[in-house]
């Protein structure tokens, strides 16, 4: 099928483009930006003047941004093992509904994705029944136990795009160093969840004024920054690619800034949660605002915004972490960590543009081009001729209210329920297939 998207604002940082224009898709590939003189439109069909037989379905994107399909390189789809929280069908469908055409699934499934059978299962299930493209991330260590390396070469052959023990840090500096050395020929990144567990283990939220008010044991900021510093030193020594997950503190960004200045091969991500909320969101013992790393102080949130603006941060992720109702509606200390984030991410991230923290082109870079590059997704993150026909249409202006009951994700655990947002993804095209998004 051919599709012609007209009247939209094309934003593509890979070509440094931000202008009105028409984009032509043929089957599963982007043909490119086409001149209005080269086609005629009759109703919902367009005809190319060069080839009268070539009919295209017309999508009128007036008032919309037309951007390369968004990529979320940090999600938890819970399949296999925790299908009551989410499965590959519901998770990739929620991704599509949120504007993402590709997602990278973390390996903390049950069993852990530490062998090619699991990786193969995930890819096959997504191909047969999924919506957004799925790229598995495999475990660094067997069972994510932090002792022996997984069969990484096998896993990469099976389709894994990175390795991580996410949910847990690679606690042993020795194992981290060996894993980084081992993956060097593969060119994939190791994604670490930086956390010094001896500092964080007795806490339930950020240590600060909010934790004092509520009488909840705190997690100090050093629990993250100590691990970030360690990871960077090991990346510097090995020269392998290190990606730091969900950074949340001012000192972590200062360390990454320093590392990048020295040319150490490190990239990092922030979550929509950490730039949208601070630890006041936990007020009233709101377990939907309990996550790891915890929501931090307002000063740290400001540091996230600065790092997004100055280029220290490479990409935005959701860390989509769906959980069952009974896993959140319990004592605060017993509640599981995480937020179901795929369907609020674009609305929350657009705030950065509306509030002039970053430009719209930078937003598209953070949510599509950069994550595609980090996990080596070929022909994604771009509107160039020959790229995959993965497109997201964003309405940047229309106001809406988050309603968790309208999520397509099984996870309704969100602290954003009832929040008013401006703008959202209204259509996604993945591999040339059009998906209209639900509207509230």
């Amino acid at each position, binding site marked *: 099928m051919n599709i012609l998207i007209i009247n939209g604002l094309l934003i593509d940082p890979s070509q440094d483009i931000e202008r009105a224009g028409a984009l032509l898709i043929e089957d599963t590939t982007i043909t490119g930006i086409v001149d209005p003189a080269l086609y005629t439109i009759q109703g919902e069909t367009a005809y190319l003047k060069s080839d009268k037989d070539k009919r295209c379905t017309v999508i009128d994107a007036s008032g919309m941004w037309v951007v390369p399909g968004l990529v979320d390189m940090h999600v938890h789809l819970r399949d296999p093992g925790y299908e009551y929280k989410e499965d590959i069908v519901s998770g990739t469908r929620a991704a599509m509904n949120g504007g993402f055409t590709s997602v990278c699934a973390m390996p903390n499934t049950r069993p852990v994705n530490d062998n090619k059978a699991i990786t193969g299962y995930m890819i096959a299930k997504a191909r047969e029944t999924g919506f957004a493209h799925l790229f598995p991330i495999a475990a660094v260590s067997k069972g994510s136990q932090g002792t022996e390396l997984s069969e990484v070469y096998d896993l990469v052959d099976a389709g894994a795009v990175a390795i991580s023990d996410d949910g847990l840090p690679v606690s042993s500096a020795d194992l981290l160093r060996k894993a980084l050395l081992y993956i060097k020929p593969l060119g994939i990144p190791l994604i670490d969840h930086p956390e010094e567990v001896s500092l964080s283990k007795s806490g339930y939220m950020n240590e600060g004024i909010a934790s004092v008010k509520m009488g909840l044991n705190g997690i100090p900021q050093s629990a993250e920054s100590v691990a970030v510093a360690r990871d960077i030193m090991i990346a510097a020594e090995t020269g392998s690619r290190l990606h730091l997950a969900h950074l949340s503190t001012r000192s972590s960004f200062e360390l990454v800034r320093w590392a990048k200045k020295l040319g150490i091969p490190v990239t990092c991500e922030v979550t929509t949660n950490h730039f949208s909320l601070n630890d006041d969101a936990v007020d009233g013992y709101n377990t939907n605002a309990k996550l790891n790393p915890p929501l931090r102080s307002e000063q740290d949130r400001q540091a996230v915004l600065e790092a997004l603006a100055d280029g220290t941060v490479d990409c935005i992720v959701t860390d989509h972490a769906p959980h069952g109702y009974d896993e959140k509606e319990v*004592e605060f*200390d017993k509640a599981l960590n995480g937020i179901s984030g795929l369907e609020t991410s674009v609305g929350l991230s657009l705030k950065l543009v509306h509030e002039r923290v970053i430009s719209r082109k930078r937003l598209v870079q953070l949510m599509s081009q950069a994550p595609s590059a980090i996990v080596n997704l070929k022909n994604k993150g771009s509107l160039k001729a020959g790229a995959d026909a993965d497109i997201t249409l964003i309405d940047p202006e229309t106001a809406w209210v988050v309603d968790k009951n309208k999520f397509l994700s099984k996870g309704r655990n969100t602290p954003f329920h009832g929040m008013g947002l401006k703008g959202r993804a209204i259509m996604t095209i993945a591999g040339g297939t059009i998906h209209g998004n639900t509207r509230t």
Partner: protein
Amino acid sequence: MVSGKGIIGLKYLGKNDIEQIIETAFSMRDISRRSVKKVPTLRGKTVVNLFFESSTRTKTSFELAAKRLSADVVNFSYASSSTSKGETTIDTAKNIEAMNPDVFIVRHASSGIMELLSRHLKTPLISAGDGTNEHPTQGLLDIMTIRDEKKRIDGLKVVVAGDIYHSRVARSDIYGMGKLGAKVYFFSPPTMITPDYESLGARVTYDAKEAFTDADVIIMLRIQLERQAAGLFPSTREYARAFGLNDQRLKLAKPDVIVMHPGPINRGLELSSSVADNQEHSRILRQVENGVSVRMSAIYHTIGEGHEYTDN
């Protein structure tokens, strides 16, 4: 005010609420001091002690309080049994609620349990302590004990000393006494507090001299011995020397200083025996007496308002 809603934290009570509860508590104490220690005020009401964490004296204090108001009292202790059966705290509480109690007295190891349970229950709750958050009736009995001696709270220098970080008593004390105008000092090793505690309105100090000089009231908190294994202090000997209260430090305080402690005390650790037994300054046993009175008042204001508490 608290009528029908319960008392889950002094954080949520206004100055007037606190003063009214204390005033009623003094009348309740008169009842407790008589030879017939019982009024029919809450005849036919059911008070349920729902304790998810073991406690003997707080439970006994609440039980006596309820019985002196003629309520029926039932004790449910779930220290570990219900979780081992796999039942959630919410389900446990809902099961007991189905038996139509009038008020729950709840103790639980998790901070914020009162907020969670109040979303799921219709029955009012009185907190008997949640995690490291609040112990509101302890805060109230501390206020009552100070009022009893000093006739006021406003302007007094009150020192709360010990493991502030893990203390639900310290938090209720600062919430309550702060509202009544006391100048509260937190004196603690730096491992058992953070500077952020000043956001509650207290002055944080690590200096014994600054803390105890000219104090009107000293509240020593119990040091949990397991904090030593967690690395928060090196030895009981050093804790006593650097942060405990002894006769020498007591001399820094005002001549009419009173010494309090939520109990049980570790003699020779946070409190020297000579201070604990000092009849002139120690009000530790008076606190225990006032505890029953304050809990009678708390239960009365939660489910008994409109009923007389005089004899008839």
